């Protein structure tokens, strides 16, 4: 599969998703980009803006298994990754996979679970495998985790630690649809729409596109551009903790994926500039308390990006 073919497939995928998530083409694009970059997505928004629909829709479009886990404070790791039980008939211990064993997993309200449960996702997210009782089980491929969290309601929540946040490729916000689109949403029957969604891309094709994305050309100067942005976050006056090398690697891979999504076999500075905010914003810790929220970090990142010279 070459990049022109994949561009067509991706256009189809975006178009299909656009039927259930109206008026949010950028969000759809970012979600698809994260998928191609073998990444995970953290969606931070108030309830009812279509976070679940995005996850469900994505899963339906690529014809894969989809599981949804509702995170609550009494959720245990074994509820997520699975449990080993004793089979009386065979007289052996057997592993019963948890809901994490799916291609697309939606972890709803992830910050409601205890840190113990949250951290159960770490291995799954980075290594795409889970370890239970000295045994390791591979997760299905491709694997993508979409987590949501409510930015307003903090009581009874456990905010995600830095290590956990660092594993999410992007943190995006859905935002309210504009009036025209909202009108459309009201008038349509969303369940029916979801039901009628047909798969347009196969799992194999997704994997092929992921492989293709890894081959995208990133010019040496663009790598310098990424490093310059990363360095700026580390030296910025308003930022206590800059981004990690994992973050810069992620930006590199994701920019490659965005190039494929845009129908190119090479990166341009715009890919990096556009992705740097969604990828870096949730990873930095601002100096001042109170601007730790989405808008605050976004503004800091804007400030950083606007201080870096673009290589021409």
């Amino acid at each position, binding site marked *: 599969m070459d990049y022109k073919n994949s561009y067509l497939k991706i256009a189809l995928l975006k178009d299909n998703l656009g039927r259930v998530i109206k008026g949010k083409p950028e969000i759809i694009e970012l979600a698809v980009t994260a998928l191609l970059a073998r990444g995970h997505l953290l969606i931070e928004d108030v309830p009812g803006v279509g976070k679940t629909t995005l996850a469900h829709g994505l899963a339906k479009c690529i014809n894969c298994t989809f599981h949804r886990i509702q995170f609550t404070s009494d959720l245990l790791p074994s509820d997520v990754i699975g449990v080993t039980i004793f089979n009386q008939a065979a007289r052996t211990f057997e592993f019963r996979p948890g809901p994490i064993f799916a291609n697309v997993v939606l972890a709803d309200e992830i910050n409601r679970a205890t840190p113990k449960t949250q951290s159960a996702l770490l291995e799954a997210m980075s290594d795409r495998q889970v370890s239970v009782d000295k045994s390791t089980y591979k997760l299905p491929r491709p694997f993508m985790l979409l987590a949501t969290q409510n930015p307003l309601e903090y009581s009874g929540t456990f905010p995600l630690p830095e290590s956990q946040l660092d594993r999410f490729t992007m943190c995006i916000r859905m935002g309210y649809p504009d009036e025209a689109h909202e009108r459309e949403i009201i008038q349509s029957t969303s369940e029916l729409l979801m039901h009628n969604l047909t798969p347009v891309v196969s799992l194999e094709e997704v994997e092929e596109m992921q492989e293709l994305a890894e081959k995208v050309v990133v010019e040496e100067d663009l790598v310098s551009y990424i490093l310059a942005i990363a360095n700026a976050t580390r030296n910025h006056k308003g930022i206590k903790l800059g981004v990690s090398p994992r973050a810069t690697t992620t930006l590199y891979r994701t920019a490659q994926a965005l190039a494929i999504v845009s129908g190119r076999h090479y990166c341009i500075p715009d890919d990096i500039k556009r992705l740097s905010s969604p990828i870096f914003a949730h990873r930095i810790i601002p100096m001042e308390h109170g601007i730790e929220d989405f808008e605050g970090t976004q503004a800091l990142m804007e400030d950083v*990006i606007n201080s870096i010279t673009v290589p021409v």
Partner: protein
Amino acid sequence: MKFSYYIIAVTYFMAALGLSAISLVEEISAPFLIVMSSAATFSLILNLGKKELIRGAAWNVLAAAIFIFFISDYLFISESLIASASRFLTILLALKLYDLKKNRDYLIVFLLVFFQILASAASTVSPVFFLILSLFVIGIIWAMIIFNIKKDLQDSAHGSELPKMVFGLPFFFSIIAISAVSLVMTFMLFFILPRMGIGFFERKTANTLKVSGFSDRVDLGTIGPVKQDSTIIMRVELKGKAPTDILYFRGTVLDTYDGFSWNKKVKDNTLIRRGYDGVFRLTKHNGRLLEQNILLEPLDTEVFFAASMPVFVDGMFSSIWTDGTGSMHLPSPPYSRIEYKAWSAVNAPIPDKFVKAQYADASYLNSSKEGKKIIELASDITKGLSTDEEKAVSIEKYLRSNYKYTLNPAQGKGESPLEDFLFYSKEGYCEHYATAMTIMLRALNIPSRLVTGFVQGEWNSYGNYFIIRQQDAHSWVEAYIDGKGWVRFDPTPPSGIASLNKPMAVTLYLDMLRWKWNRYVIHYSFTDQQKLAKTVEGRSKNIFEKLRSSFNIQKPKGAQYLLSVLAVIIAIALTTAVFWKLIGLKSKKAKTPPFYIETLKVLKRKGISRAPQETPLEFALRTGNSNVRLITEAFHKERYGDVELAHEELEGVKTALKELKKRK
């Protein structure tokens, strides 16, 4: 000026250099050069007229024919690789000038010129070559820059017109500066790189100089004709100023005279090997020695020269021979220039224990008619004198004052040249004087012999050396004085020794350049490198001493040393930094395709400029111009995608750029 004319100008400049380099090759005749030069000039007229000159296929056939000619020239006609290769290259060059179409053709011309220069380098020692080489370096750098620009222009969207700056003076100056730097670097490499003692290609000059008077048989009257020949035989460098006494460079000693010619009968040749001190010792002598550095042109005799009387000789010889008379010769005539050192005891008599019979042989006098007259004359002159030395001095004086020096003595009625000289015409040149004195001394039973050689030529004060030419060939007398040895007498009047014409200062200066060129470039050796290093070390030490004394710094030596080392490190670091910066800027510039730079310039003129934080795409969107959008996409492809733009895309960019320029 149009681009094509510019290229043609550069190409013909290079071709002219190639032809002048070939003109230095001795075997190449003038008519050949004239024909080739006029062929080249004719092609220039045709090239300016832009006509189809020779078709590619025809050129190939001609080139093959010339190659066959070259092979046969090498094998059967000239049998010299340099001569035939020079001819081959020159004909090929002249022909190629009729086939200048593609870039490749021009490059072939430059390559041919390069090979011509190589051929010339292998066969010439003329300093003019250095001038041609320097011009070639400048020319080739110039041409390569022009060609690079041309290629870049063809690749980019600019069209093929040359930017104006190429015709400006700064462009020329920068080319000359670049060439100068590369020349200086080459020079430094030449002097610094360690070298072998012997070159890989020992040059063999076919045309050795013919000298007379140094064979075993010398006819009377052979030296006369060469007295008008100003060909340089050797150069003798001395330390310091010219000595007050005239230097005599001994060649061969002749002992037997038969009335018309001199013969050499004494032949106890002895092989002299290099001594433990690394030099050849010829004789024993205590006293002051004159050190000479001699550069001898290739001669057709194995005899080689040093000021009389040589005590030590040092040079690149494996062995040297000397005969019983103290003259030196090599195992075989040298076919190339040789350079050697000699230490001589000037004016010292040549020691000899036994006097051979030939030296006192008066048989000629007895057998010839004029014998009696000569004996009478000799005894007349020496009447009343007792010692041999007094007698010799009086004969010397007599000949000097009573005979006229001329190169064209009149034919007298005497039966032999000697009779003519002594009794009839009473005029002649050194050979006559020396022969007359030798014979007269023998008539008085004083052993004597004739010596041929050279006297010191003109002194070149620019380089502290004597230039000795054919015209400085001379002959004189050595008489055996009991208790001393062989003492030199020169009966020729001083007017016959002095150089005929005083050379101009310019000639001397040019000769000095030639001498230095030969000394420091052609014969530059490893020993010289060691010497250079030592001189530099000494000089720098001196400078430091002077600085220290002038600033009156009395600090400990360690600090001083550290300071100077620090200064050197800082200087090196600064230079590196500057170079780094220059190189860094250059490579960055080179990445951006020229059409995008042009676009940015056009937009800037219209008041829209890209902020450094702005990506090209954002900028293009901000301008809201579809042409800018198109150009930016092409730019993305080339700059970030490493894609070479297709022809249609380039055309699209060109038209977009034109559109952009048009609007307001």
